[in-house]
């Protein structure tokens, strides 16, 4: 087993006196793909923002290869961890190329007039791997949701960090873009040496992508394990308070939500 890349111990966060997350312990191992699943409000985004260092934990510690986050500057952290937050459509007046180049920020020097050749090389490489070469000079806010998501992933790749953290990358995407993006994420996660932490509502994406799934409920870890260990009707029912069926069994099971209005009306399901 490889040494943990990232260690969280006793990690907790609260807002206005209400505990949002934790306390929980967590390890992310080098090279693995860890997928967070859980209902709305379970604390997935909060956990991701803590892991990326965007939020300061109220208690507990985070360490990168044994080094506490508090010893690392924002820039140093950004050279290790790249984050793709949920992208909301907004006016971003920059081109694809410019956005991806900004991914190089933690490697750039304010006092150098222009980015170095290796910065441009990293940008080209990131754009190629994500497959948005044709869009290079288009404005980001003119792209479709799926294309835009891909561009932000390219920017994160250009950051050349060991850990890639993504929050709901397939949300708001139609079926075709979801499938394209899943393909891209699978390719990236499959690359040797890349560590991915991702939160998603899409259980089938989680199944395909995750080496390990973390089921988060009300800020606590309900269960953690291989997809086949988590994507089981009993675990999912406890997690989501909804009924699931296993459509295809195996190491990477395919699940389906069972919509049974008559049965659910009598039981009153899911009040979060």
């Amino acid at each position: 087993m490889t040494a943990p890349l990232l260690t969280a111990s006793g990690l907790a966060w609260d807002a206005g006196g209400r505990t949002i997350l934790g306390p929980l312990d967590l390890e992310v191992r080098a090279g693995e793909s860890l997928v967070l699943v859980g209902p709305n409000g379970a604390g997935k985004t909060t956990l991701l923002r803590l892991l990326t260092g965007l939020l300061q934990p109220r208690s507990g510690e985070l360490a990168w290869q044994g080094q506490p986050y508090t010893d690392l500057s924002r820039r140093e952290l950004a050279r290790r961890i790249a984050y793709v937050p949920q992208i909301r459509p907004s006016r971003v007046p920059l081109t694809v190329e410019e956005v991806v180049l900004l991914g190089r920020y933690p490697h750039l020097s304010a006092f150098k007039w222009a980015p170095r050749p290796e910065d441009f090389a990293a940008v080209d490489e990131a754009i190629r791997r994500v497959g948005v070469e044709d869009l290079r000079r288009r404005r980001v806010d003119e792209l479709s949701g799926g294309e835009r998501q891909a561009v932000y992933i390219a920017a994160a790749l250009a950051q050349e960090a060991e850990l890639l953290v993504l929050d709901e990358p397939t949300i708001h995407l139609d079926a075709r873009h979801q499938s394209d993006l899943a393909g891209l994420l699978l390719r990236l996660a499959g690359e040797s040496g890349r560590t991915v932490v991702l939160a998603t509502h899409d259980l089938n994406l989680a199944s395909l992508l995750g080496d390990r799934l973390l089921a988060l409920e009300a800020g606590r870890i309900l269960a953690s394990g291989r997809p086949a260990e988590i994507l089981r009707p009993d675990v999912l029912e406890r997690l989501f308070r909804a009924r699931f069926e296993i459509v295809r069994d195996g190491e990477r099971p395919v699940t389906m939500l069972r919509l049974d209005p008559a049965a659910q009306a009598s039981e009153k399901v899911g009040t979060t």
Partner: protein
Amino acid sequence: MTARPRLTLLLLTLFAVAALLGAPLAGSHDISLSDVLRGEPTAAAIFWQLRLPRVLLALLAGAGLAVSGLGFQTLFRNELAEPYTLGVASGAALGAVLALRLEESAALIGLPVVALASFAGSLGATALVVGLALRRRDSATSTLLLAGIAVSLSCSAIILFLQYLSDSTQTFRMVRWMMGGLSVVGYGEVLWVLPWVLGGAVLMLVLRWDLNLLLLGEELAASRGVDLGRLRLKVLLATSLMIGALVAVAGPIGFVGLMVPHILRRWVGHDHLYLAPACVLGGGAFLVLCDLAARTIMAPAELPVGVLTALLGGPFFLWLLIWRSRG
């Protein structure tokens, strides 16, 4: 329209140089460049002693106003933010008016006291407005502008009160000064303003990557390694000091910081590497032309340049509001 940053910068440089050389020749009494170069005494005196310092001050003031507008707009990701709409200029004006009033009674020395008071006013107003906006954890147009309006109105009310308490000569001085003008200047004022404006512009250039990243949103910027707290502090401090320094010598001159960055973005694009110098050149040249118009339209009488920029800026602001609500 595609942005042509390098070409635009070149044209703006030519434009600024032309304005700098041409504007001192025109006025209530036109002089010719050849007379100035030959050293003809009257022409030389008018050019070197009266008009050049004024034109230089206009250039620096325009540059400073445009750069600080750009800083506020990027920081808050809000095209309507500028020293005037955020109440920063009013804060500086209040400080300066207070100093003008005390100066009479206490017979204190001129510029330093007014300048210090106007620094204090601009920093105080910035802290208040930004504090209010950040407390709400959003920099939504409404919160920011409402806070700016509240601060502006309060400052204006106190200024009116001070004028009411003053005698008529003092009141006239204050009112005249509040209109914003570049009329009575020498090289002292120019040298006083230079470091603040230059410092602010250079800072924008140094922080260009941070500012560009902010265009993608604060969360993404932070995740790429931008220290948001320190970035805000640097930009706000630099812009407030610029405005404080400018208001102390020229009074509040509104809307330059709104119009110039907005127009230049269309020609130069959004990269602060080009946008910051473009604002220096474009803002400077723009205010030189406004000042030229202000002193020639009604010659020999002079229109305060602040009145002219407000006449242009008010409708522009309205147009922006309407255009934004459609987009």
